[in-house]
């Protein structure tokens, strides 16, 4: 009995034919309240849009307001597998390293001398390529310096199409993350990359060869002016070639940037100013 009453109560709540109420409100009541909320939310949305617009107006197009998160730029390596920083392949198995070579080919394509010559300028090396705005007059677009693929020499993939992977002497390419306005240096000279094995692997790493020589990032590639002003900016690269790394064993390698004015990143960030990866070359011989 009580249950029936409850049921009809519910039914009545959803649609009460007597008072013509749907969910406890008549049509006009619903209309009024919905109109109220419509106006209310249009107003709020307008206000939100307005504040967003005003906020965007206050932003500089070429330099973010804050860069405190990026005081230590990140470092990454190429080639990169999908998920992890591990380069594992079998010398005898072409398919296992071919993808690395292809990834590098793809990555280096914009660095082809022809492309660089077409888009970028030749700059004076070993000094910052400053292109300051004069007051309100923007000096845009800003020019970029050429980073020719040939600088990478043995690791350029021009002479050695497979970047040494086929004979167990692979090339790894390292780049420093772009940060607007960053001027890295080491005692006034260009900052450079050094790679080394982690403790227990130090005897396995063998000889290394850096391209360009000493693994420097030339000063002329700095500062970076942002993708809007410096459309064709070519990020400088450093290639490392492992000449006689111990085969058939995991070798943990860490590369870091050497510069005075780049703070050592926090311990928690494994990729700020340094990069770690694992290299394993399997071979039958």
């Amino acid at each position, binding site marked *: 009995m009580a249950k029936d009453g409850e049921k009809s109560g519910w039914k009545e709540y959803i649609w009460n034919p007597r008072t013509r109420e749907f969910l406890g409100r008549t049509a006009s009541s619903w209309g009024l309240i919905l109109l109220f909320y419509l106006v209310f939310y249009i107003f709020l949305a307008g206000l*939100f849009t307005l504040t967003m617009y005003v906020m965007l107006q206050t932003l500089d197009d070429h330099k*973010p307001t804050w860069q405190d*998160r*990026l005081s230590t730029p990140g470092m990454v390596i190429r080639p990169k597998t999908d998920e992890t920083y591990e380069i594992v392949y079998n010398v005898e198995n072409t398919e296992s390293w071919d993808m690395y070579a292809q990834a590098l080919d793809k990555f280096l394509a914009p660095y082809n001398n022809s492309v660089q010559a077409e888009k970028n300028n030749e700059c004076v090396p070993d000094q910052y390529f400053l292109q300051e705005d004069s007051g309100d007059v923007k000096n845009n677009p800003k020019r970029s310096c050429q980073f020719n693929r040939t600088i990478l020499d043995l690791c350029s993939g021009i002479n050695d199409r497979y970047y040494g992977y086929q004979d167990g002497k692979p090339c790894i390419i390292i*780049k420093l*993350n*772009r*940060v607007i306005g960053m001027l890295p240096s080491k005692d006034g000279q260009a900052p450079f990359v050094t790679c080394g094995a982690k403790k227990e692997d130090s005897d396995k790493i063998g000889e290394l060869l850096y391209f360009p020589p000493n693994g420097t990032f030339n000063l002329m590639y700095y500062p970076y002016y942002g993708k809007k002003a410096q459309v064709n900016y070519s990020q400088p690269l450093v290639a490392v070639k492992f000449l006689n790394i111990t085969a058939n064993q995991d070798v943990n390698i860490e590369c870091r940037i050497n510069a005075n004015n780049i703070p050592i990143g926090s311990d928690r960030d494994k990729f700020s100013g340094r990069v770690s990866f694992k290299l394993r070359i399997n071979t039958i011989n």
Partner: protein
Amino acid sequence: MNLAICLLLQDDHEITIEELETRYNTSVTKGLTSTFASQVLERDGPNELKPPKGTPEYVKFARQLAGGLQCLMWVAAVICFIAFGIEVARGNVTAFDNLYLAITLISVVVVTGCFGYYQEFKSTNIIASFKNLVPQQAIVIRDGQKNQINAHQLVVGDLVEIKGGDRVPADIRIISGQACKVDNSSLTGESEPQSKTPECTHENPLETKNIAFFSTTCLEGVATGVIINTGDRTIIGRIASLASGVGNEKTPIAIEIEHFVDIIAGLAIFFGFTFFVVAMFIGYAFLEAMIFFMAIVVAYVPEGLLATVTVCLSLTAKRLARKNCVVKNLEAVETLGSTSVICSDKTGTLTQNRMTVAHLWFDNHVHAADTTEDQSGQSFDQSSETWRSLARVASLCNRATFRPDQEGVPIPKRLVVGDASETALLKFTELTVGNIMDYRNRFKKVVEVPFNSTNKFQLSIHELEDPLDLRYLLVMKGAPERILERCSTILIKGQELPLDEQWSEAFQTAYMDLGGLGERVLGFCHIYLNEKEFPRGYAFDPDEMNFTTSGLCFAGLISMIDPPRATVPDAVMKCRTAGIRVVMVTGDHPITARAIAANVGIISEGSETVEDIAQRKRIPVEQVNKRDARACVISGGQLKDMSSEELDDALRNHPEMVFARTSPQQKLIIVESCQRLGSIVAVTGDGVNDSPALKKADIGVAMGIAGSDAAKNAADMILLDDNFASIVTGVEQGRLIFDNLKKSIAYTLTKNIPELTPYLIYITVSVPLPLGCITILFIELATDIFPSVSLAYEKAESDIMHLKPRNPRQHRLVNEALAVYSYFQIGRCSFAGFTDYFTAMAQEGWYPLLCVGLRSQWENVHLQDVQDSYGQEWTFSQRLYQEYTCYTVFFVSIEICQISDVLIRKTRRLSVFQQGFFRSVKTHPKHASLGIMYLNSTQLVQWWFVPVPYGILIFVYDEIRKLGVRRYPGSWWDQELYY
């Protein structure tokens, strides 16, 4: 009456004493042996009423952990654990967030559970502490020796002695007794003392005269008896256990909160499930979708709410305890606020439970005495010579004495040996004449004749103060008509005038007037005995009365009443304005009851009963239209003959009701009738037999001083000072807490929307997560607890005691308007959060449009060079750090809006400017906590200011809303926007 049936099986009252001795292995002269007594004690347990068997402690605790919201949180925690397990198995480092979240969730449930348990535990303890207040002593004869032991040590077969003033320590078969009278009112409700004799007079143990029952009081005389039942096996024990079997009905606020929690839990699951489906549909992995589900539940459930409600209620309970109301059941505080009828006892609750001289009649005038508790009232003119004589008679013709060593105690509070009216006279004369003991010593008493029911007077003969005056003074007091019979003269302004017709008439009028006030009137007269006839040393014989007892000189009348407590008329008035009916239910005489009712305002001035109208119009009672009579006095006898419909009718037609000469059982009938009429009824009671009424009532109020344990057990609230005014305070606090809880809940609910929307946007638009779960919990449980509790301290907006009681079916704690207004209007501070979030992102290099759809890249642990809008590249840790900044920024926005929110929630109708901005000082911890927490980042300070316009907007908007509500009551605006 199954109680009577089970009692009939017992024949302890019918068997002979010898049989009794053998049955219980005792002796009616020597009692039990100590060793046997201790054996029986071991077998039967102590002689005390076991408190009704409570739920085991672990069940209580478990119940705290398994509420509706708690279950949701358990589910959320389990999901977190599963997610953590799977992520760790996959080698994901950030998975620890899930572990922390799970741990936080569990600790939240456990901590709030402990908190709730502690509160419950504490309130149970208050009750427990009452019981051990006064350990009862009993005189027992064991091994032929009289000992005084604790009453709970008594066993069946013990031979005990009771005397006037004792509480009967167990059910006793009387062996011998002298003029023993017992007040059975706590058991049967009859206030007439019952005499107890060794003879068995009835086969029903309840009726027979040779059994005295546990917890009744022996009024006078002495008796010895053998204990036949102890502890829970006593009659009272059985009644008490019957009463505890009656389930308590749920308090209105418990229903409200349950209702509310159900809705919240339902909505949380609905939202969670919807977005789970949406997430699966969009293409998230199952695990991710589960985490979304969990996050939505966490965001939507107001974790801090239960703690807030409990804290608010217990704060009020504490405040009430300071005002002498101990609340046993926290939720009863609020029930009290919705009370619409109070059925109140008279004696002790409305009155001071102390006979006090109220009026005097001398010199042909009625003089009012000061009846206030603290003697702050007006006194009367004491210059007349007649007053001096009257005071002398009243002082001397009085056998009552103060107990020694009470010099420091105020006179009205001193303990006195003597009956109620003598006590009243003693205190009265002590107050007006001063130092009566000394005064009496100056008039040496020669002889006295105590009061008895045949002659109805009391007299004593004294020597005079002046040693040269050798006359004796005879003073007499008694029933006025008897006194008048013996008088031939009357004192007027110190002159002895012959007592003629005219004075007799004046006396009669005064006597009727005072009697009509429900007062007990005594007449006083004196005479100086002729020194020739009665020289010094004359042998007065009190039995023969060999002296003048007529032709006396009438001095005056003194009338006494148990006066109302000073605070009661005001309190009744307050109830009246608050739309609460006060119904008096008393065992007293109808005239006295009516007089007191009129005195305290239960029957207001000018209200008439049917009988009054009949008398005024000179028509028979039957012809009076009952609806014309506002007041009605119904005696227990009439009530017995009324059907429940008639009683309902009477309650409906007469707003001012007094029930006199009622038994506690009839109280239950009255309560039920009120409840049938839809009222929320508060009932006061003290006797054991009141416990069913107390249980039946929506809120039972037991008396702390006069109340029995059974009444206290059955009650929801205990008045430590037995004062009616305390109930009214309780009502006021109850109403206030209802209003304040409403504000508090509205405040708590508001932030659920800004907590929820980040997730919704995160899932649907795939922006980096603006607000993390742990931050949500931090808001819920750390920063927002203080302000929401502070709202409990809010003063009332208007005179809440001028409003009608709330109708529990219409005015709910959480209604649609409140939820809608909180969620959809004030909840818009999520816009503030998003403004601030997008600002913080954009200023770091991530434009709003880039953020949309960024989620998968942003959260990819292996991507160390994600480009922002400026072409800069970010590692995962840098992005994560930025995400934490966003949490903070969103958090700050919510907090800024909540500061605004707590300000607007201070009032529902009045402008905050009218109420005063910082009346509740407790708002401030919030500002402090805000300041301390996130000072580490410099640019954060500026992000604090981004949501400020929204905060101001909320404030201004709500002021406009309140203005509309105030200006146009009943309008569309009022209906839709007033919660």
